[in-house]
């Protein structure tokens, strides 16, 4: 059993028209045993930047706290909020620092980036040692990946309005969770637009 599949977990993010969505499952388990069903894996960095982490639960906690520490220092020095692009870089270099003894997590970053005065959606992901990937459609992480790829490739279209994006992300995630034994037990979906951030908890299969 791979160390990345010890606790399970799934995170997916998608780009819409002037909005992004990021969602995760809620399970915390130890191999096949489910310990709690209240463990979301999406964290807010600031109003315009969110982080999703899957993989080993202890490393998720540690990496998140390390990144928050660095972001706080950034904010003190720069006197401004960190942008998703810069945060993405920060995540990649934090992971590469541990190149030969890595954190067993694969992060996904999403947010709204200011480009020439206009807010544009941004998503990126890295592997466990900080190799980044940037796309303009969707990204996912966790043992649920193969199922999520199939669902997202089929259901995603460019320029989805916020409501449609929310539906698409939710259905892709819920259907994929049905095919993964170590993720699930509900989901949490964040929809980020220039005006606000909405969070919804989804009821899924509890098995």
């Amino acid at each position: 059993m791979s160390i990345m599949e010890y606790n399970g977990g799934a995170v997916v993010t998608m780009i819409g028209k002037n909005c992004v969505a990021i969602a995760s499952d809620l399970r915390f388990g130890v191999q096949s045993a489910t310990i709690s069903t209240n463990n979301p894996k999406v964290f807010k960095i600031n109003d315009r930047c969110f982080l999703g982490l899957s993989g080993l639960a202890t490393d998720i906690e540690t990496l998140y706290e390390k990144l928050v520490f660095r972001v706080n220092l950034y904010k003190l020095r720069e006197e401004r909020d960190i942008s998703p692009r810069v945060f993405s870089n920060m995540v990649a270099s934090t992971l590469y620092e541990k190149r030969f003894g890595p954190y067993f997590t694969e992060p996904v970053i999403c947010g709204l980036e200011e480009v020439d005065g206009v807010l544009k959606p941004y998503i990126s992901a890295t592997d466990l040692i900080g190799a980044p990937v940037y796309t303009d459609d969707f990204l996912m992480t966790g043992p649920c990946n193969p199922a999520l790829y199939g669902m997202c490739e089929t259901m995603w279209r460019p320029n989805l309005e916020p409501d449609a994006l929310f539906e698409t992300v939710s259905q892709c995630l819920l259907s994929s969770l049905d095919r993964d034994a170590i993720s699930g037990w509900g989901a949490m979906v964040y929809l980020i637009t220039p005006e606000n951030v909405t969070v919804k908890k989804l009821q899924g299969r509890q098995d």
Partner: protein
Amino acid sequence: MEDLSQAVSLGTSIMAVEYDGGVVMGADSRTTTGSYIANRVTNKITPIYDNIYCCRSGSAADTQAISDYVRYYLQLHQSELGEEPEVKTAAQLFQLLCYGNKNNLQAGIICAGWDQHNGGSVYNIPLGGSLVRQPFAIGGSGSTYIYGYCDATYKIGMTKEECKEFTKNSLALAMARDGSSGGVIRLVTIDKSGVEREMIPGNKLPKFYDGR
């Protein structure tokens, strides 16, 4: 990625309960390869004879092969016997195969049914190949989560309906906690008049406290 280096396994929660006049058998419906759910509507309760069924847990390949052998041997036995075979006989055939090949098998089987000489009976054949008759038997990876619940809830002399409720509730609890169990609950009731199959889909499962 689907982990084909890991064998197809019936993670599983299985159960059988005896009542006066027959047995109730239940199972979840999840088959996994590693963490990928290869089949989420599996049928783990397989017929061995008209009046005898078995619940399978462990390696999917091993349990399918074993139940095919037992079905074949039982058919030959019935031809010589001239009447419906006893559940005990089927269970002992399972034991013969599971104990004799214990080093090469990973199979936990519950054999249950109704016959005219003994009424309803439930036999548990766990991993090493031992055979034990029990008023109710639980098996599979999910069963570890419901030993306490089953011991606390079971009463001698339950009716058919009470046995079904008991099975449904126990399996729902096991499926909620065990990652290797899930899907739908399949129930099979065997008595003098024959066999009745039921399926309880995910949204109709009994609901318990789940953290919310």
